[in-house]
């Protein structure tokens, strides 16, 4: 069978549709079926004023974000990832502290 044409042969389409219906098992039917939309609730960080457990906003006068700089080393999970780079080599995740 040739697929060089712009369209698939009807027989191929019918076969594929039949197979698709056979292997289909809708996951969404049981998902969130018994949930309802609840208004008036913001997801964390999606409201304008991040709540910290009281009614004031997240930032405080003593916080100084500008001390940040790049003395930090990531403490996350990236070092458990080994991935292939675009040049074909592979490497474990690592984040080096950056000076300056």
């Amino acid at each position, binding site marked *: 069978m040739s*697929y060089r*044409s*712009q*369209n*698939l042969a*009807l027989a191929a*389409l*019918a*076969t*594929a*549709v*039949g197979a*698709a*219906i056979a*292997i*289909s*098992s*809708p*996951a*969404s039917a049981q998902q*969130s079926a018994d*949930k309802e*939309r609840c208004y008036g609730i913001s*997801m*964390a*960080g*999606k*409201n*304008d*004023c*991040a709540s910290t457990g009281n009614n004031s*906003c*997240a*930032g*405080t*006068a003593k*916080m*100084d*974000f500008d001390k*940040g*700089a*790049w003395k930090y*080393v*990531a*403490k*996350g*999970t*990236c070092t*458990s*990832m*080994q*991935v*292939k780079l*675009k040049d074909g080599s*592979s*490497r474990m*995740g*690592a*984040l080096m502290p*950056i000076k300056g």
Partner: protein
Amino acid sequence: MSAYSDLTLLQQQFTAALLAPSTQIPAAIAPTDEAKRQKRFNVYRNNMHAGLVAALGARYPVILRLVGDEFFQAMALAFIRQEPPTSPILAEYGAHFARFLETFEPTADLPYLPDMARLEWLRHLAYHAPDSPIAAIAELASLAPEKLGEIRLHLHPAASHLASDYPVLTIWQTNTHDATVQPISADRPGETTLITRPKLDVLLCPLPIGAGIFITALAEGETMSQAAASALADAASFDLAKTLAALFDAGAISHIQPD
């Protein structure tokens, strides 16, 4: 000088002072003594940064976990400085985080981070996308077989896909669901992910080879038949049956247009 240009100038100075602490606070702000002026402006500046960092953390939870809290905070602040909000709507903030990560030197060792940011942003968009009915795959069975060549499949407004050279879905899943992250081997091939929100929950599912081309073609208005031909032209192993099953099962198709 008009009142309008006075206000514009004040707003520009205010914005500059918010983003760069070394900049002078506008003279018109809180004209009490200098120490109080500084302290009060710092409260405002820190509130702004804390809110945006928290919003980015909520939007990019896997990136947050991958690099850790402290690193994420510093990285988010660098992003905020480079790409301050341009809209008053916080839900629209952070769209360019993936692009920022592409050239962000300290994470050059994590080449999959930009694609992870794209995946998390698509999840965010899916969450806020309009609701829509979902078409059932059984509707295809009710069509006369000779009609199959003409039908168009309309994508649900929340449906999108991401083709990546990296196993981003696997990385996302282990960092989202596992208390201890599973190691991921370098031999794992890249993954194409389907992002949908058929009801209220955003779903991520793997897509078979060629499905990305198929979805793009559907979105451009091609018939199912044309889209399948496009996908086959790109990847000979494209499996239309598996792709259709995956799309309908995840609620990615909202409507089947007969012709």
